[in-house]
């Protein structure tokens, strides 16, 4: 309590000093005041994050039978050495048992005087080392600094784990290494509650499908003919559209590569390259998105007709088809959005939604390719192509069935050419 009141007094004093008109008015800005106050708060109050733990009382760590043995001959690999030292020095200070092969282990601050010579490796745990004399060996500190004074000689390597090496002079014949303590950085995000996660996922799914519906509504309004053609192609050439969609995905990159190489090799085509790249990307986007919406349109139309067949009084229109089709796919994603956080089941739901969406998009893409973006109507089953027509369709249909089972007898044919049908004539 007394310490906190003293700290408060010092803080108030500092603020009063700050408020005194010692600085020119032009220099004082809100930013400098905030900075100065913050610095003062840190100086007066102390920064608890930088507060150093109390150092242990210096002593040599006794080597016993049950001590952990550390070899400091090679300190060139600080990470593995740090791990071994951390394990050995993890216990309370009074229970440390460490043996250094060919050297000594110490706890707390340690110094080698200018008239002293220490032979062998030295490990210092939780303490600083000041070297003014001579050390014949490697020096390692764990959570402590190394200060090399002028005139000091260290005939080996120096390693400061969680500390610094400050060379004020002297000579280190080996290498001086430091490895800082781990510093956790980056944005450590607050844990996201499951409810928040669900709301975010549902909002994401709703946003994507709302956007697709708006695009679909635009297509219904302004490109209904091609949209219906692609949709009819999906229904009439379902398997074919899927196969073509798959092949289209496989051949996409090779086609693109050939296009680019062809343009480059044609020299003059190099100029067209940027334009072609943009057009290719736009066509691809239109095929994929348009195909997917046409697929949804086909699904919606089928569902609507089934409802009407059951007697439902609903109006069949393009907007309804698109909304119903997209809603069916969105339902899958909404299930994932609601239960995606469940271990194992969540990823399975996501996988199922991805696969189904990919299948539908592939069929739509294939239908868009088959029908050339809805401009070619053969695959839609709407128009019978001329080559499919034969004069067979022009034959007159007999009024009483087809008497092909029996040819008329040669003898029964009158000279006038009119065939006779014995069964009927009888």
């Amino acid at each position: 309590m007394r310490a906190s009141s003293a700290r408060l007094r010092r803080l108030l004093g500092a603020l009063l000093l700050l408020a005194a008109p010692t600085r020119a008015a032009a220099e004082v800005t809100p930013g400098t005041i905030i900075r100065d106050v913050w610095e003062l708060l840190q100086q007066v109050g102390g920064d608890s994050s930088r507060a150093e733990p109390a150092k242990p009382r210096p002593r040599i760590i006794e080597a016993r039978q049950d001590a952990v043995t550390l070899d400091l001959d090679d300190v060139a690999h600080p990470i593995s050495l740090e791990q071994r030292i951390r394990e050995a020095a993890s216990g309370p200070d009074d229970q440390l048992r460490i043996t250094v092969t060919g050297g000594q282990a110490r706890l707390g601050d340690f110094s080698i005087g200018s008239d002293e010579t220490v032979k062998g490796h030295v490990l210092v745990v939780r303490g600083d080392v000041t070297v003014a004399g001579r050390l014949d060996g490697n020096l390692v500190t764990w959570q402590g600094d190394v200060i090399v004074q002028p005139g000091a000689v260290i005939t080996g390597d120096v390693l400061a784990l969680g500390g610094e090496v400050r060379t004020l002079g002297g000579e280190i014949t080996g290498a001086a290494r430091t490895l800082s303590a781990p510093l956790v950085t980056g944005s450590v995000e607050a844990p996201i509650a499951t409810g928040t996660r669900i709301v975010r996922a549902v909002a994401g799914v709703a946003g994507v499908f709302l956007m697709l519906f708006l695009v679909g509504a635009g297509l219904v309004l302004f490109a209904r003919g091609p949209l219906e053609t692609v949709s009819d192609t999906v229904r009439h050439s379902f398997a074919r559209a899927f196969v073509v969609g798959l092949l289209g995905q496989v051949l996409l990159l090779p086609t693109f590569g050939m296009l680019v190489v062809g343009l480059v090799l044609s020299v003059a085509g190099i100029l067209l390259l940027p334009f072609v790249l943009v057009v290719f990307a736009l066509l691809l986007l239109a095929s994929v998105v348009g195909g997917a919406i046409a697929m949804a349109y086909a699904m919606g139309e089928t569902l609507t007709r089934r409802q009407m067949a059951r007697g439902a009084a609903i109006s069949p229109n393009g907007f309804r088809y698109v909304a119903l089709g997209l809603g069916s796919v969105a339902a899958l994603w909404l299930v994932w959005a609601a239960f995606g956080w469940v271990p194992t089941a969540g990823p399975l739901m996501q996988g199922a939604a991805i696969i189904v969406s990919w299948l539908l998009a592939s069929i739509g893409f294939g239908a868009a390719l088959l029908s050339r973006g809805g401009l070619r109507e053969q695959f839609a089953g709407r128009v019978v192509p001329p080559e499919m027509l034969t004069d067979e369709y022009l034959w007159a249909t007999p009024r009483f069935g087809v008497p092909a089972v029996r040819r008329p007898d040669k003898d029964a044919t009158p000279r006038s050419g009119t065939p006779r049908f014995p069964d009927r004539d009888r």
Partner: protein
Amino acid sequence: MRGPFLLATLAAATPAAAQTVREFSVVRQQQGEPALAVQVDFAAGSLALHPAPAGALYGFRLTYDEGRFAPLAEHGRDGSLRLGAAALGQGGVRVASSRSATQAATIALSRQADLDLAFRLDAVEATLDLGGLRMGRLHFGASASRAALRFGQPNPVRCAEATFDAGAGELTVTGLGNARCERLDVRGGAGRVTLDFSGQWSGVMAVATEMKMGELVLRLPRRAGVRLTTDTFLARFAPAGLTSADEGRTWTTAGFADAASRLEVRIESAIGGVRVEWID
């Protein structure tokens, strides 16, 4: 009813992983070592190199992501020195993310020791000041880096060879006259390579460049005699200030034969462009 739901909600909430950054440094004082063969391997982040203060053989400071990299600092008795950051894991496809941007390395090298330098960089933003180093050989290889090499001061010794492999990145080398290299090999991929031949010129430098799709910019000193031999496929070549006597294959400056310092450049380029700029 609300209790179990809240409990399940808290249990399902998991914190995002944070990045653990560490700092490693190593310094070695000069103990009369005559030479050092330095190999720098660095996968991602920023790298700076500059001459070390007098009395130091080398210094290396690395700030790295402990979860993805480990410091590399090996000094062999044969005078070899390997510095950098080794990627953790057993190979495979390594994707550099924005988290790698926190990784940074600084290297300082002695001006007293003869140096053979080799750099192998991946996705690195490198600034290398090689001025004043006793560089006998240089190999610079990068895959997707943006690198700026500068020879601000003359090389005290002759450099036998310098090779640059720019990959798909951007490479700028300035003060090549100070490098004092007899041979210079430059290979470019899809990026831009700028070679600035300013500096204190002496003798003859033979330069061979092989560009695939990128652009090559040559900044040539007016006082040096320059001869360019070109072999281009679809590359644009702007031979400003040069004349050709053999239908555009060889280009020379006036007085090339009598020039005290000469630069002979062979250019092979497939697609891209070659631009010549003059510097005083």
